[in-house]
Structures are given as C-alpha cells and as structure tokens.
C-alpha cells in the first residue's frame, strides 16, 4: 500500500483553527489562559513547529522508548545495584525522585493548558504529545524508585514529598507552580518549554545520566536519558513562540518571561543538581564538575539559542556566571548542616581527596567553603556531634525559598536583598530573586516562607522537633550524613600518617 509522506498531509490534518459560531473568539481564548499579550489569532498563523510528529509515529516511538527503559530495569533488577551503590549515590536517587516525579504531573497540566488555549494549531498538536510525555515521566519515575521502598523508607518520599511542607519541597513546588501551574499557554511555552526544558532539564536528565553511567547505575542512566528524548521534542514548542512575540513587538514581554524562568531554574538547580554532581556522586564516578556541565549545556548550548531566536542575554548574566562557581557550594553546606530536615542522606563529600578535587575544579574553595568544613571536621573529630547539627531554621529567601547564603571568607560578605511591599518586609537571596518579585508582586506577595510560617506560630512546638513534625519527617526518614562520618576517619588517618 502506498502511504502519503507525512509532510504531504500533516498541515491539513493538524490545522484545527475553526471559526467559532456559538461563542466569541475572546470567550474561546480568554487572555488570562492564552497569555497572548493581546496579539490577534492571525499573528500566530505562521507558527511552524520545527520538530514534527504525528500520533501514529508518537505511539510507535514511545512504545519503543518504554520497552527500552523497562527492559534495562528488568535486566538489572538482580544486579544488586542497591546493595553495592555508595550511600551518596542512593541519596542522588532519593533527591531526584522526590523533587521531580510528582512535579511531572504539574508539567502535564501545563501542557494541557497549551493543548486547549494555545493559539496555533501546531502548538496545540505538539502540546498534546507533551501532555502525554509528562504523564509518562511521572509514572515511570514513581515506578522505578518503588522497588526500593521496602529497603529504605526515604524512597517513599518519591511520592510523599509533594504533599508535605518539607522546606526543599516548598522551594521546588514554588518554582514549578510559578512556571507550570499558574501561567497561560504562551507563558508555559516560553517559561516551561523554552527556558526550562531546552536549557536546564538537560543538566538533570543528561548530565546526571553521565554520572549515573560512570557509577554503574545503568537503570537510572537509561531512564533519565530516555525521559530527555521526550523533552527534546516537546521543548521545541517554545522556539516559534519566541520568534512570533519578537516579530510582533513583544520582545520585552518575551524576554521578561524567559529571564524569570532562567533565574528561578538556576536557583533550584543550584541545590538540586549542584550538590549531587560535586559532592554526592562518588569522586571516581564524576564525569565532569557541575560547573563544566553548566558550561556545556547552559552556556554553550542554551545561551546561544536565546540570541539565535532574537532575544538578548538576561540582564543578570554576569551574576549568573559568577554564581555558577559559588552558589551550589553554599547550598550543599546548608543542606548537609540541616540534614535532619531533608528526606535523603546528604554526603558531605569533603574527604581529603574530594577536597583536592574541589580545589582543582573551583580554585579558592579551600580558602572559602573549605574553612566552614574545617570547623565541622574538627567538631566531628572531637566527637562534638551536637555542634555539627542545627538548633534553628535557616533564613530562606522569599522568592526561591532556599537558604540565603553567600561565599564565606576573611571578611563578612553576607548580603541580604530586602524589600518592603504593602507594609510587609521581604528578604531575598539575590538581586535576581528580588527582581522577579518586583515584576509581579501580586503573584508572590501572600506566600509564606518556612520562616514566615514559624513566626506565624504554625510550627509547634517552635523548635527543631516541631519543625520536623511540620515537615512530615519521622525518624527513619530524616536525613543523616550519608557515610555516617566515615570520611572523618579518613581525615584522622591522614593526620596520624603525617604526624608519624
């Protein structure tokens, strides 16, 4: 049987721009949900999705992807990966699944908004596949960790985390809700598919896959790199939108949405991806440093595409490049110190050999972050474990909801970026986070950070125990040092060797 080539029938089949007769165009596509900046339907007629696929092709290809990922999992189920993996690597898995699996459902709802309210037929068509992609991502990323739940309760957080007020989860949800759940169709196309998916998801789903492969966790490596093949397709929804907005005099609006998303994604990834790549992944399995992955994916590949499509570099780019060197070290230190408040066991990652690697990848590390770890190491060597643990909550940013921290050194360099809005005082970690708030205060102003909730009396009793209860963390779930301080013994042995 002769079949027409896809391109001979594709445009006719997907062109569903019918003329409504029972309702007005405005009622069919309300601005709040289309987010088209008042541009008429005609402006979107030239939308041409670059990565075309059809439903029969989609079904066939997705079936093959799933068959691949599930068969790798089945083949390796008896490989004792769990029993043989380093505790640091298991923490990578716990953090990944807990922070991401359920967020994929939010991404699916965002794709749904584009399916219904996207102004271009091509956009609606590609988003239909995107919507199904994200359901796949949630389900597969809940299924894979489920095999470990009976071995370790922290894996239960793959599902549980999203329903808790654990602080890292508040941060992740705040970002995902902002980009995915509360934006109109064009907003989702710009902020989720273009800024987040052509850029940052490559870090977590491909960069981390490289580390996973080095660590011998082929099941996880195959899973996340397979997920990214879906992202690579539906992320292309945003590109044509950028061009349409720029062409129709809406460059400033487009730029703002993209800048907000990039800054917010960066903050989340500085705590999600940075620590796992540079501290949790066993030293011998680190393919590249976090900074090197950022340079490969975000600077070399993504930053260029902004300029290619007619946008500018975000105004904060210099701050951003500086933060790539520094920010995640502080986030890591904070997570490790407040370890009882997270659902994974942070690996300190500061044995003598690891510190040498950090100094090599981030010259100056020993003179800055290294000094903080010196104090922790001394306390641990002397058995003063209470001093390695927190008594209070961290001060968190009113935008990214992450601990406010800055590179330590001989001088006090701590900075706060405050703002008083409608009688309420806000504190931000950076110019970028304060700027995001200022763009649309009504969107963010009523949100309470963990510290706000504490001061509001929602956390009872008002101490660490009350905070853990508030966050839903029970004994057996609360984090502890991944290696149970075995790395401190390496330091001790090193010193004895040097002294003798």
């Amino acid at each position, binding site marked *: 049987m002769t079949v027409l*080539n*896809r*391109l001979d029938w594709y445009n006719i089949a997907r062109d569903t721009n019918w003329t409504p007769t029972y309702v007005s165009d405005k009622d069919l596509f309300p601005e709040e949900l289309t987010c088209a900046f008042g541009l008429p339907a005609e402006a979107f007629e030239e939308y041409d999705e*670059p*990565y*075309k*696929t059809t439903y029969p*092709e989609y079904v*066939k*290809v997705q079936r*093959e*992807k799933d068959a*691949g990922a599930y068969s790798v999992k089945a083949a390796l189920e008896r490989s004792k990966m769990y029993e043989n993996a380093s505790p640091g690597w298991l923490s990578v898995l716990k953090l990944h699944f807990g922070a991401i699996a359920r967020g994929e459902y939010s991404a699916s709802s965002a794709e749904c908004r584009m399916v219904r309210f996207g102004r271009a037929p091509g956009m609606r068509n590609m988003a239909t596949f995107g919507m199904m992609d994200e359901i796949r991502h949630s389900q597969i990323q809940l299924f894979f960790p489920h095999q470990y739940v009976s071995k370790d309760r922290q894996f239960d957080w793959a599902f549980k985390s999203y329903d808790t007020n654990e602080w890292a989860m508040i941060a992740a949800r705040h970002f995902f809700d902002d980009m995915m759940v509360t934006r109109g169709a064009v907003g989702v196309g710009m902020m989720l598919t273009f800024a987040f998916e052509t850029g940052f998801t*490559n870090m977590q*789903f*491909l960069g981390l*896959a*490289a580390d*996973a*492969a*080095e660590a011998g966790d082929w099941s996880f*490596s*195959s899973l996340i*790199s*397979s997920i*990214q*093949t879906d*992202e*690579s*397709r539906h992320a*292309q929804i945003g*590109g044509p939108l950028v*061009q349409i907005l*720029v*062409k129709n005099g809406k460059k400033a609006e487009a730029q703002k949405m993209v800048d907000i998303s990039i800054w917010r994604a960066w903050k989340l990834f500085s705590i999600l991806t940075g620590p796992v790549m540079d501290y949790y992944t066993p030293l011998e399995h680190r*393919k*590249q440093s976090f*900074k090197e992955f950022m*340079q*490969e994916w975000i*600077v*070399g*590949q993504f*930053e*260029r595409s902004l*300029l*290619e*499509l*007619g946008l500018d*570099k975000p105004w904060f780019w210099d701050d951003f*490049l500086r933060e*790539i060197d520094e920010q995640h070290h502080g986030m890591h230190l904070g997570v490790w110190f407040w370890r009882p408040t997270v659902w994974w066991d942070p690996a300190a990652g500061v044995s003598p050999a690891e510190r040498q690697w950090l100094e090599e990848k981030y010259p100056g590390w020993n003179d800055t972050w290294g000094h903080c770890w010196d104090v922790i190491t001394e306390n641990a060597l002397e058995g003063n474990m209470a001093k390695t643990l927190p008594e209070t909550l961290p001060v968190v940013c009113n935008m990214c909801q992450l601990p406010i921290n800055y590179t330590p050194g001989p001088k006090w360099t701590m900075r706060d970026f405050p703002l008083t809005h409608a009688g309420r005082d806000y504190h931000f970690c950076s110019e970028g986070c304060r700027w995001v708030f200022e763009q649309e205060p009504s969107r963010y102003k009523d949100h309470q950070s963990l510290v706000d909730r504490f001061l509001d009396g929602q956390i009872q009793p008002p101490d660490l125990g009350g905070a853990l209860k508030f966050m839903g963390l029970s004994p057996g779930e609360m984090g502890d040092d991944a290696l149970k301080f075995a790395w401190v013994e390496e330091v001790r042995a090193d010193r004895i060797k040097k002294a003798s």
Partner: protein
Amino acid sequence: MSSHHISTAHLNNRVGPVLRQGALAKAVVEAAEADNPDRVIVVEDKVAYVRISTDGEMILRRTTIEEMLGQPFQMRDLEVELSSFAGRIDNAEEYIRFYFEKTF
C-alpha cells in the same frame, strides 16, 4: 564546545545531535561523516550520551544511517535515542538537519 572560557562559550555555531549511547549513536557518527564530507565532525563521548557536532549545518540521511546500521531504519526512530541537540532542527522522512540560523 569550541570555547573553554565561560564568558565566551556561547559564541559558537556548533550544531548536531546528542544521542544516548548505543548502536544507533555509532551509526549516526559514521553517517554524519559520510553525509557531511566537507565538515569536521567532532564526537564527544560522555558514556551515557554522545555529542556529535560540527559548525553551521549537519545533515543526516535515512539511507545512510540504514547502511551504517545494517538494518532497516525509519527517520522517526532517531527520536528514541535523541536526548538533545544543538542548533535548530528540520526533521523530514528521508533526512534530518541541524542548523544554525540567527532570526533577527
């Protein structure tokens, strides 16, 4: 990547697919060289993925991939392994093209 300094790393016109490791990635490397004879194809092996790139434009033909793979191949099946790509994409049934183009 063509530049190693972070402030200038975006000044490049590298294009091409990033494929999950496996038989198809190997075939695509060979096809990239056969279908783009005037260009230098750079292959970066990151164990989990392989970054295949060149300057400006890269074309991959279905028939060439089929020949390198030694078995029937449909262009759409590239997506099973195509985790990412640099540049823009133009996917047809007989070829796929990655290219650099500045719109404005």
